[in-house]
């Protein structure tokens, strides 16, 4: 088991390295740098001015060197201008140019600075993650129990009217992407055209003071899309368990239906959905980006869109490291958890 986890962590590191390099490479392509120069400097810069701007800020060097600097395995660039002032990647961090360390990268704990927000990346990512974490927590609290209940109720009597109704509901929610359900909810519950006005159409105020009125719709929008999928998996798993031999045995010895479902079937039926729930995290991340944009909730997904839209290289790298980490860790947890839940499977 220890070896398995060690190997997986190794693969995770390798994946993160490859992935950040891909992001680094794509964001450092010349047209992207040009766009960066024009948004940060001046929109009406000539081509030569753009080159000078990029040259002065150390962008015009080979990608692999810049990537090494970001990682902290290559010495940060320095540059002495004509009037004698020293600028450089690490110089900006220290009080005087002499005190600046040679290496300043991820390994030294410096994740770079955002060009859009003019703040250190680590601080932004931490702050935004806290906001999105709160959103995700409520999504999970709403999505997982309701999906499991719907799935178990539908799967315990396959083909019953209850099953058909619940299956129709869950298949509809899986067919409704967040930007459709979000638009529908905003239209029905917040607009003055319908007139219900139960909730607020924007969650901007929920960043400081979340309450039911401004926070429920974003949570519901993300939760619904994932819910249908988990519910269908739970239903399939439950329906399969209900046809197992030991359930028939329990019936034949006279156990009541309620006891069969709760005591014999439920625990075995919940093994498969566990994996599905863990693997839903990457999808939820997607939903978070859409919903935060739609409801103007300035969390992690919103930051991703801002960073990507403005070619904010170091912020985008920070964001992608975090999201890759989330994806891979949930995969690992789902694999390990599956082994613990199901003694018939082993990792080796």
């Amino acid at each position: 088991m220890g070896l398995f986890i060690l190997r997986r962590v190794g693969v995770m590191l390798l994946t993160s390295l490859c992935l950040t390099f891909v992001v680094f490479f794509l964001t450092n392509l010349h047209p992207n740098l040009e766009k960066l120069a024009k948004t940060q400097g001046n929109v009406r810069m000539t081509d030569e001015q753009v080159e000078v701007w990029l040259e002065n800020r150390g962008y015009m060097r080979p990608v692999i060197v810049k990537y090494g600097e970001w990682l902290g395995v290559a010495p940060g660039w320095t540059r002495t201008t004509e009037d004698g002032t020293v600028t450089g990647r690490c110089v900006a961090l220290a009080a005087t140019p002499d005190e600046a360390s040679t290496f300043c990268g991820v390994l030294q704990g410096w994740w770079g600075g955002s060009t859009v927000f003019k703040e250190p990346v680590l601080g932004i990512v931490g702050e935004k993650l806290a906001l999105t974490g709160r959103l995700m927590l409520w999504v999970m609290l709403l999505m997982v129990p309701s999906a499991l209940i719907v799935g178990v109720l539908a799967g315990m009597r396959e083909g019953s009217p209850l099953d058909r109704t619940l299956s129709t509901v869950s298949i509809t929610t899986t067919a409704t992407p967040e930007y459709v359900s979000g638009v529908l909810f905003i239209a029905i519950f917040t607009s003055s055209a319908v007139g219900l006005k139960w909730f607020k159409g924007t969650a901007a105020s929920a960043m400081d003071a979340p309450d039911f009125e401004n926070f429920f719709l974003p949570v519901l929008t993300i939760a619904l899309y994932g819910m249908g999928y988990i519910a269908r998996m739970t239903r399939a798993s439950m329906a399969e368990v209900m046809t197992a031999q030991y359930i028939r045995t329990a019936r034949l010895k006279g156990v009541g239906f309620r006891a069969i479902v709760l005591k014999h079937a439920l625990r075995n039926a919940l093994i498969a959905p566990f994996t599905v729930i863990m693997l839903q995290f990457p999808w939820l991340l997607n939903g978070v980006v859409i919903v935060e944009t739609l409801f103007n909730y300035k969390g992690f997904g919103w930051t991703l869109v801002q960073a990507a839209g403005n070619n904010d290289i170091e912020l985008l790298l920070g964001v992608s490291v975090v999201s890759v980490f989330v994806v891979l860790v949930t995969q690992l947890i789902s694999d390990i958890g599956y082994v613990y839940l199901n003694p018939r499977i082993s990792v080796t």
Partner: protein
Amino acid sequence: MDPLTWTGSLGTVLNPVLFFLVPLFGVAVAARILLSLVTPETAVQSNPDGTLVATGGMQGGARMASNGLGLLLLVVLLAYLALGAVMGPQAGIIGAMSQQFVPVWIALAATYALSIRYKRRLGLYGKLFDSTIGMIGFGIVMFWVFTAFFAGVFDWIATQDSLSQMSGMKNKLPGEPLAQPEDGTYPWYLLGGDNLARDVFSRMVEGSLVVIAIAPLATLFAFMVGITLGLPAGYYGGRLDTLLSFLANLILAFPVILLFYLLVTPEIVLTGLPQYMAVVLFLFPLIFAGVLIHARYRTQPPRNALWLSVVLVPMAVIYLSAINEPESKVTFWPLDLFDIPSGILTVFVSVVFVNAPTVFRIVRGLVMDIKTRDYVAAAQTRGERPWYIMLWEILPNARGPLIVDFCLRIGYTTILLGTLGFFGLGLPPESPDWGTTINDGRRLLSIYLHPALPPALALLSLVLGLNLLADGLREESLRD
């Protein structure tokens, strides 16, 4: 001219019936579910003379009530459409829309009549018509396919040009007559006007063309890539499998939206990256077809050469025309038959790129399962080559799950296309596709609902139809 109401003169008769039936139907269904929880199940009782009688009781009554009311409701709803198709604008907005869709209704009716008549000879497709869910799903999907076809080829269904702006029609509500009607134009905006005074209904219809043209084809390409790489990965295993799986997992670890932002922005298009990706990804169907034929006719050289040339030469010409485009990075081929608009190509390539790793994983898993079967061992003992076994022994036996996933994946691709439009990536901003129109409409959502809702509901219905179709296919393919 007066604005149209939703149901027009038809509404005076049918609306009260509908308002009476809907709550009644809801009550019947709720009663049925509640009764099934608290009362014992209905049993089938066999009589001494050999006949069967269902002992109804309360549950039986509730079932009959909900089924009967459901049928009545369906008849009323169909009456709106059928009478509307005959009466046109007299039957309000719904009638006018139904009349516009008349070619689609005829095509759907013909498809269903023919398919049900010959369903026993049509294999898996015919079996679809044994499952109600599959039939409903197929109906919804074909509705949009025919809509896209008639709107794209004959320019029929749409009432106005999807790009032209009419003065005085900005943000007008559904059913509004044109402010300055000219001869020969349709005199209403059926679903109202959007923020730029364009016809919402026509844009929704034209938008289906974008989705129906891209989504299935992109999914097909993703399957070609996934199958061509997944078969050897699953069959050989070892280092090849480790490498390919690592690459697939790498792509899957990207958040989809980040990948889109990295691949689809105008700056990246300038570097030619999407075109280079197209050069690689579009090659896979050629490889697949070539290997497929060669594996089959390897021992008959004349036939092999004939089939290879018949299939590969046209495909190569199409391939070279597709990747070449004047004034871009790839322009080496002189005989450029057609140009794909750069926005469409970029969107297409990135959607294929995002979908292919998942297909790869599914195919790999299926192959690893199937390669332990006896018929594979038999083929190996016969001395068949690995690629023959993969393509002609394993692949046909994996077709059930693959077809089901294909349907689901078209739905997922539709969602991805909508996501791209929603973030304003790839397609031009005036494009009528559903994602872009939803994005346009959401800005004024708190005041005007009508520009955002039709494309949202259209997208929802198409994806729902594809999911139902996949469910029906799964049910029927599990049956044999």
